[in-house]
């Protein structure tokens, strides 16, 4: 059993199989697209519809009552595919040539009073939104598609396009009279052309009322209005999608090219780029390549998705290719995302265990320890002093070493009458040995000469160690009633600062320490 529907083709009623109807409808849609609004296209379509009705009638002689798919196939074969017989370019140029000839002849005949000034109107008859594009296209005698594409570009860059469109919508009058339509197309206003245009208008009116009647029958009384609103919303949606696509593309390119101030860090060659961050954070060069692949897949497919999605909606493209391409891009984005997440976890695993090294710098017996440093600034955070050598940069990469200028000082009460100076370096890895090894690689220039301590402005570690939350601080144990002169500033126990010791570093699951005397402590 097959589903049939009743259709009216040019005044004749036919009972037609549903799939046959779809085939026929598709044919007419393609025909309309091929004709692409060229002059007389409505008429050509009407003629061909009449012919289809005739041919259907022929197929139904005798006892046959239903038009089947084979019949439609055969009719289409007889008529030929629209692409076969519609030669838009050639014919439109021919037309415009004959047009201009007509016009120049007319100009000669009517001499000077045939000044046919062109005016800008909104062409609501061929409108997509409000007919601004079509009006401009008429004015400049250009293809409306080109104007629409230019318009989309204006929408995207600068964003004033939307405003401009609305202004034109309000300011530019819509064509009301035949005279307006002639002015819009720049035809001379003569009795002849007015008659022609009136005939055209009557023709369109007749057709549109017929079309409207059929729409009422098919889709309910407000189908046209709903279509218009729906179209406006989908156009806005499409433009928004393309807009986000462009922004993402710009952001992605900025990341790629580098010189993008993503992290306040600098290298020999300028700011730290995204690829250098990748190299610093990821464990191996193969991970870096994988990150590139995953990241590009994710970013590329998301951007392409936004663009295609927008364009498909904008130009009403809807077939299995558009759907397949969007699905493919979606899957690519998922795969890229999974790769990125996997790399994140892998890198995160490489930062689970803390290794720490404690070195003793020296012991001094003096009334006042003098600390000298080129460190220009310091800040007080409880019992820890953060000395920032250069506040603008988080880190600096130079000669394959990473320099960090956050030198922290911790002051504690000494158990005897001597100043004890230690430094503690720590780093993370996924094994204890690796973490301790990385901590051991941290270097900081600090020398004790007599009772004065010279502190370097930064600590550094090899770039090959990667960025593994390397940390460094100096511990100074101050005896009771003794003080430190830090770059000329006096520091005394219990006076300026509360030196109560708070060990708040028990958050690590596992830690190890290589003591100054070479002894290794695990989970101390």
């Amino acid at each position, binding site marked *: 059993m097959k589903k049939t529907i009743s259709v009216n*083709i*040019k*005044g*004749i009623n036919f009972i037609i199989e549903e799939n046959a109807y779809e085939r026929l409808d598709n044919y007419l849609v393609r025909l309309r697209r091929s*004709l692409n609004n060229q*002059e*007389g296209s409505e*008429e*050509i379509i009407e*003629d*061909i519809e*009449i*012919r289809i*009705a*005739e041919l259907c*009638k022929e197929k139904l002689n005798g006892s046959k009552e239903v038009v089947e798919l084979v019949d439609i196939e055969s009719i289409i074969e*007889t*008529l*030929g*595919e*629209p692409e*076969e*017989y*519609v*030669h838009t370019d050639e*014919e439109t140029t*021919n*037309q415009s040539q*004959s047009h201009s000839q007509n016009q120049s002849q007319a100009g000669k005949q009517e001499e000077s009073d045939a000044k046919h000034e062109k005016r800008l109107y909104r062409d609501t008859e061929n409108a997509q939104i409000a007919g601004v594009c079509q009006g401009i296209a008429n004015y400049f005698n250009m293809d409306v598609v080109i104007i629409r594409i230019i318009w989309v570009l204006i929408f995207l860059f600068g964003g004033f396009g939307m405003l401009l469109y609305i202004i034109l919508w309000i300011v530019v009058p819509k064509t009301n009279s035949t005279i307006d339509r002639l002015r819009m197309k720049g035809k001379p206003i003569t009795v002849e052309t007015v008659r022609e245009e009136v005939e055209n208008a009557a023709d369109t009116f007749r057709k549109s009322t017929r079309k409207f009647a059929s729409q009422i029958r098919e889709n309910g009384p407000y189908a046209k209005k709903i279509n218009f609103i729906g179209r406006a919303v989908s156009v806005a949606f499409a433009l928004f999608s393309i807009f986000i696509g462009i922004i993402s593309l710009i952001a992605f390119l900025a990341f790629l090219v580098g010189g993008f101030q993503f992290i306040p860090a600098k290298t020999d060659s300028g700011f730290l780029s995204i690829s250098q961050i990748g190299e610093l954070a990821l464990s191996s060069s193969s991970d870096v390549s994988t990150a590139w692949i995953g990241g590009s897949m994710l970013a590329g497919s998301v951007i392409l998705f936004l663009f295609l999605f927008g364009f498909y909606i904008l130009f009403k493209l809807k077939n299995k290719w558009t759907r397949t391409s969007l699905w493919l891009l979606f899957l690519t984005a998922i795969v890229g995302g999974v790769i990125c997440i996997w790399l994140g976890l892998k890198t995160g695993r490489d930062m689970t265990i803390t290794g720490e090294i404690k070195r003793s710098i020296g012991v001094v017996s003096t009334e006042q320890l003098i600390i000298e440093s080129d460190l220009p600034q310091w800040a007080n955070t409880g019992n820890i002093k953060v000395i920032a050598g250069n506040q603008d940069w988080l880190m600096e990469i130079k000669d394959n070493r990473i320099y960090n200028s956050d030198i922290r000082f911790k002051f504690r009460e000494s158990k005897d009458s001597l100043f004890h100076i230690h430094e503690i370096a720590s780093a993370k890895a996924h094994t204890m040995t690796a973490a301790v090894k990385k901590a051991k690689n941290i270097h900081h220039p600090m020398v004790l000469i007599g009772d004065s301590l010279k502190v370097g402005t930064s600590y550094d570690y090899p770039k090959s160690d990667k960025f593994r939350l390397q940390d460094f601080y100096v511990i100074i144990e101050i005896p009771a009633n003794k003080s430190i002169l830090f770059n000329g500033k006096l520091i005394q126990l219990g006076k300026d600062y509360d030196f109560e010791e708070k060990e708040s570093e028990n958050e690590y699951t596992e830690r190890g320490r290589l003591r100054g005397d070479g002894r290794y402590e695990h989970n101390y």
Partner: protein
Amino acid sequence: MNVENTQQQMRKGILEYCILSILKSQEQYPSEILEKLKEAKLIVVEGTLYPLLTRLKNAELLSYRWEESTGGPPRKYYSLTDSGKEFTEQLDTTWQELQTAVEKIIKD
């Protein structure tokens, strides 16, 4: 360059002339015109005719009138306008000249 293409080009050039000639003696509707053109093997697919008819009509060489038909869709009966008749006569002369010229060249 293939033969089919060239054949198509040759046919296309004279197609308009043939349509005008068919309508010279009496007014006809598209199906009748199609029958003659297909018989003469001048067109392969029927769709070719319709853009041409519209073009000739827009060039004011043809005009049409509607006529109801019994049991079928309404018919558009096309006929030559005065300028169409004049145009066709001019083409007749050109065709005669071309025919003689081509034959002469082929013979040599």
